[in-house]
């Protein structure tokens, strides 16, 4: 196993330029986090990102086509006063640009006709591209946005193994699976770093636990709740999870890694380490027509060239939550 301590010491250095400190004060961030955005995007674009993060996101949801025809759902919600707009880069997503009340409190929601979900988050399962009959491992499944989407896309005919180590969050996952009408799944209370070796899946999804930096527009407390030390810890967990779940992808199978993040520490750096250490893991064409190219390098660390095929969503470019996602194959 390669030693990454020299890379990590560069990437996770705490520093802040006067410009970063000024912007941090203006927008309410920790200075070292603004410095990271400047290092990735440059000062002008970093400022655009900070501005975009000031704009609250429209509510959005994914229609559950397994339970209802989406045009019919749209009619029903519009009849209740919602103003809906299709999300252009997803198959089943809608923005609710005007909402008379919360999307999570309609009768349609209770009937399991949709899942309240961020637009970029919906793309992850489109990238996974699960097929009916396949065995799918969702290695950090709670609260269930992507697990329910996998079952929707396979018409509840994949064998879904959904894993999470939080009992509290699993309760929500189970509730969503029931509400949305699915039955072909098993939910495990477990740490995906320590799964039995017999679990081998055609496709594995790791939507890794993250700092949640990507959802600042929804939760502004995340501007300052996590520092670089936390980021380093989260990165270590993400990397350990990614290394562990590779063992559960069958040969020729697919792994999609995703994180709700803005920085390369939770995305490109994880993939860089993974493909550098594993000859049998390759970055694949993403297979989705949306998003921006991944970050090629950070603070003088140039990532493996293949990492550029991974995809990012940015608040100031796509208007979504911040997200990183990458499709890999295990050969």
């Amino acid at each position, binding site marked *: 196993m390669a030693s990454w301590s020299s890379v990590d010491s560069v990437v996770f250095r705490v520093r802040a330029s006067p410009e970063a400190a000024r912007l941090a004060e203006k927008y309410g961030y920790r200075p070292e986090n603004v410095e990271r955005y400047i290092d990735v995007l440059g000062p002008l674009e970093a400022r655009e990102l900070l501005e975009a993060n000031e704009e609250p996101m429209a509510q959005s949801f994914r229609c559950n086509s397994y339970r209802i025809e989406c045009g019919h759902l749209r009619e029903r919600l519009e009849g209740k006063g919602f103003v809906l707009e299709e999300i252009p880069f997803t198959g089943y997503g809608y923005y609710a640009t005007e909402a008379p009340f919360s999307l999570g409190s309609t009768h349609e929601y209770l009937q399991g006709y949709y899942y309240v979900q961020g637009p970029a988050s919906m793309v992850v399962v489109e990238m996974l591209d699960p097929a009916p009959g396949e065995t799918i491992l969702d290695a950090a499944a709670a609260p269930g946005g992507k697990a329910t989407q996998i079952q929707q896309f396979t018409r509840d005919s994949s064998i879904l193994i959904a894993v999470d180590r939080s009992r509290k969050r699993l309760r929500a996952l189970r509730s969503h699976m029931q509400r949305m009408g699915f039955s072909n799944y*098993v939910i495990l209370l477990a740490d995906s770093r320590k799964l039995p070796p017999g679990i081998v899946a055609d496709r594995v999804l790791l939507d890794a636990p993250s700092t949640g930096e990507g959802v600042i527009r929804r939760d502004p407390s995340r501007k300052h709740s996590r520092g670089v030390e936390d980021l380093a810890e989260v990165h270590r967990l993400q990397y350990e999870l990614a290394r562990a779940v590779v063992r559960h992808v069958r040969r020729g199978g697919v792994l999609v890694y995703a994180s709700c993040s803005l920085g390369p520490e939770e995305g490109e750096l994880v993939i860089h380490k993974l493909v550098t250490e594993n000859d049998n893991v390759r970055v694949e064409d993403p297979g989705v027509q949306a998003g921006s190219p991944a970050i090629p390098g950070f603070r003088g660390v140039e990532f493996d060239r293949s990492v550029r095929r991974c995809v990012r969503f940015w608040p100031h470019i796509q208007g979504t939550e911040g997200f990183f996602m990458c499709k890999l194959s295990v050969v």
Partner: protein
Amino acid sequence: MAALRNLTRREYRLLEAFASSLGVSVRAIALNPMALVVPGARYFDVFDVPLKILQSLGVVGGSVYAAGFYIGYIEEFSFTPSLALSQRLSRLCGHGVDCIVVDSEGERFFLYGRRVHEDHLVKWLPGLRPVVNEAGEALGWGSGAVVESRGISFKIVEPVKDLGWYLRRGG
């Protein structure tokens, strides 16, 4: 650690009796009912476990939290049906299963966990039944009863478990 096992004969008879009270066979409720037993718990959940999921259980280890279609739980030899089961059975309303039907106002009351009175009942039946709206969409389980007030009898439906639970408790 939770583990799945087959129902005992006595537990299976509970399911049969419940199905019979609705006018259907137990196979309308579950093809392969299994108990998810947590040591020390007062009750256990019952799932209808599809064959393919059952086969996969051999490799996933012993930390199963849920598997397959949740049909309810058994506590002290009494079966309580799940919301998901009301949705499964609502497709059979009028085709073997007798369901209580409420109008749109009754739907609102019911989903807020409130009693539905006679003027919002389109179809009333006594006892525990799936409750649906006029479009046939499942709303949960309700119990039809007759109450008396000032010497006059009224038909009502009390919510036993309504879909609003997903908001109130289900996450």
